[in-house]
């Protein structure tokens, strides 16, 4: 029973963390271009140019 006092808040906290991360990425437009993201690893950045 004592273990639960720590474990349950930890479990819920981790879940909430995931939820917050999802909301954050949704807001930052991480899901706007899913097919493009898969292709971008093939794009070679030119030198001296930030992404």
């Amino acid at each position, binding site marked *: 029973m004592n273990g639960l006092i720590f474990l349950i808040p930890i479990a819920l906290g981790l879940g909430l963390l995931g939820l917050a991360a999802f909301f954050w990425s949704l807001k930052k437009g991480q899901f706007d271009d899913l097919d493009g993201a898969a292709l971008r690893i093939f794009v*070679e950045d030119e030198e001296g140019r930030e992404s």
Partner: protein
Amino acid sequence: MTATALVERDFAVPDIRCAGCIAKLEQGLVRDRRIAAARVNFTEKRVHLSCTADTDMPDLIGAFSNLGFEAHPIGSGPEEADAEAETSRELLRAVAVSGFAMMNIMLLSVSVWSGAAGATRDLFHWLSAAIALPTVVYAGRPFFRSAWRALRHGRTNMDVPISIGVALVCAISMYETATSGPHAYFDGAAMLLFFLLCGRWLDSVMRDRARGGVTALLRNMGTGAMVLGNDGRSRWVDATALEPDMVMLVAAGERLSADGVVIGGASQLDLSLLTGESAPQPVRPDDRVHAGTLNLDAPIRVCVTAAGADTAIADIARLMGEAAQGKSRYVRIADRAARLYAPAVHCLALIAFAGWMIAGAGWHHSLLIAAAVLIITCPCALGLAVPAAQIVAAGELMRAGVLIKDGSALERLAEVDRALVDKTGTLTLGRPEAIGLERLDIGVKSLILSLSQASRHPLSEALTRGLQAYDVRPAEVKSIRETPGFGIEAHWAGRVVTLGRPQDAVLGDALATELSVDGRTVATIRFADRLRPDAAEAVDALGRQGIESMILSGDRAGAVAPVARELGLTAQTGMSPQDKLAAIDRQVALGHKVLMIGDGLNDGPALAAGHASMAPGSASDVGKNAADCIFLGDRLMPVAQTVRMARRAQAIVRQNFALAIGYNMIAVPLAFLGFVTPLVAAIAMSGSSLIVVGNALRLKWAIQ
């Protein structure tokens, strides 16, 4: 980076196909000094630019074409589009919240089911309640709102049993928790919301994606014009900013952006998007011209008389409004199911409650069983059955180049048994194609290519396109010069070569061009609008699916006859928009469900009136707006593929319904007898949802 203010602009670039294109565009565009940043969105085939405020639209489009891409500017979209995207995002947030809640409550529930008892079980139930209640309030809003709307109008829909079920289950579970009872159904409520929201979200994603594609296409034509100012200088004006009395300079190969009167120059206009007429119409000063027509021949000056929303011919707009009413009467299959289903669910729950009360079980136990019945029958799988199948179908069709506007379009497409097809631009390509190129010898071909490459004239472009198929290299010519209205002149091996308007008038009005060397005619090439390459196969394929096709054309009988003969179809010719509507009404009166396929402004009312309708990507704005789906590219086969896919999707939806009903036939008696504990409910619900989604995924390979 410059200090001047930057403006953001979006472009639709349909040719983005690979990682190479992304790199080429993003790295190539920023080499232009005025473009500060470029970002490609591959999924939507768009490019977002930040550029200096003084950059003209033609310059930006030029920057794209220097890299070998065709770009169409997308205006800042209408507000309603943003609102729709916002709904979709709100639904996704609700899915995330309910998913989180479902998993965490399940975590607690599993320990209860594994035998937690006493104080631990109560604690877990309280925790579950603390997670579930806010979730239900937040994530359940779409259902509560919709159910309330339906009830207020004295109707019922799928959302009514859902809302009542969720609310009742939460209330009973709260009571159970407060009285240290053994069963709380919080996980059931959260899971129900999660699955249903998934269905809703899929539905809205489908509409979003199609709408994105359609708005990109809508901006395809006439989005602005060079306007001659009072000081004699010309500047670029967006179509939305055009006003009456402005003077537009329309070059050959440009589409008119507004209605007007010709005040200078003479040319030929392609009216096919407006009337279906395939032969070009000559215009001279004082002739009225309409937005959306293509200037074929020489530059003209046009004084604007009406711009923007006023340009659509009022008649057509009125006809379309009337015609669209039939379509709005269509009731989607899920709603039809809900009409039968919702009362049945309510009755069952009521009977269960009454039955156990009469059997003397006490109101607490009876309510618990009624809630179990509601939760078990709640249309979890039913809510997923339709959207899951439709989004898979729409995704596959999109890959094949067909944009479906919404799920109801797919359902209506599955029902059609008669196709009425417009000719110009639908059965045909709707643009001039050079005829008889194969008869020219290689030297002439290379000479023509070298000249035609240098011009943006529609006939030159048709020549360049046609010659590319023959693997010819352009001849080396010097000092190329283009005279608008006459042709291109250049020096080749010391001789003067010209490509342009034929000197003898024998050819009449037909589109033709002539290559001459030192004033002597070497070759004459005619142009005609050709059938789409697979038109015959597509018509055959439709026939095999039991759909008989017929041509409805606004063109002259003489122009339609060869097409009708080649495809073996009956045709009606010279039809006005009203005639087309009447033809559809006749078919409807015979009990047919009509699929209308057309592209022009004159097809708009017919597209709106058809049980379902399709338009090619090259169609007029009105056509694209009125059609249920749009197919891209030169092939007609997507029409037959779409109908086949729609029918497969409908079959899957029916199977899903059968699965859901079968599941209910097993689960409801169990719930009636009181065997449905929260554990059984959880297994049954997720199991049936997974089966339904899995069945829908079979559509993924159905297009071949």
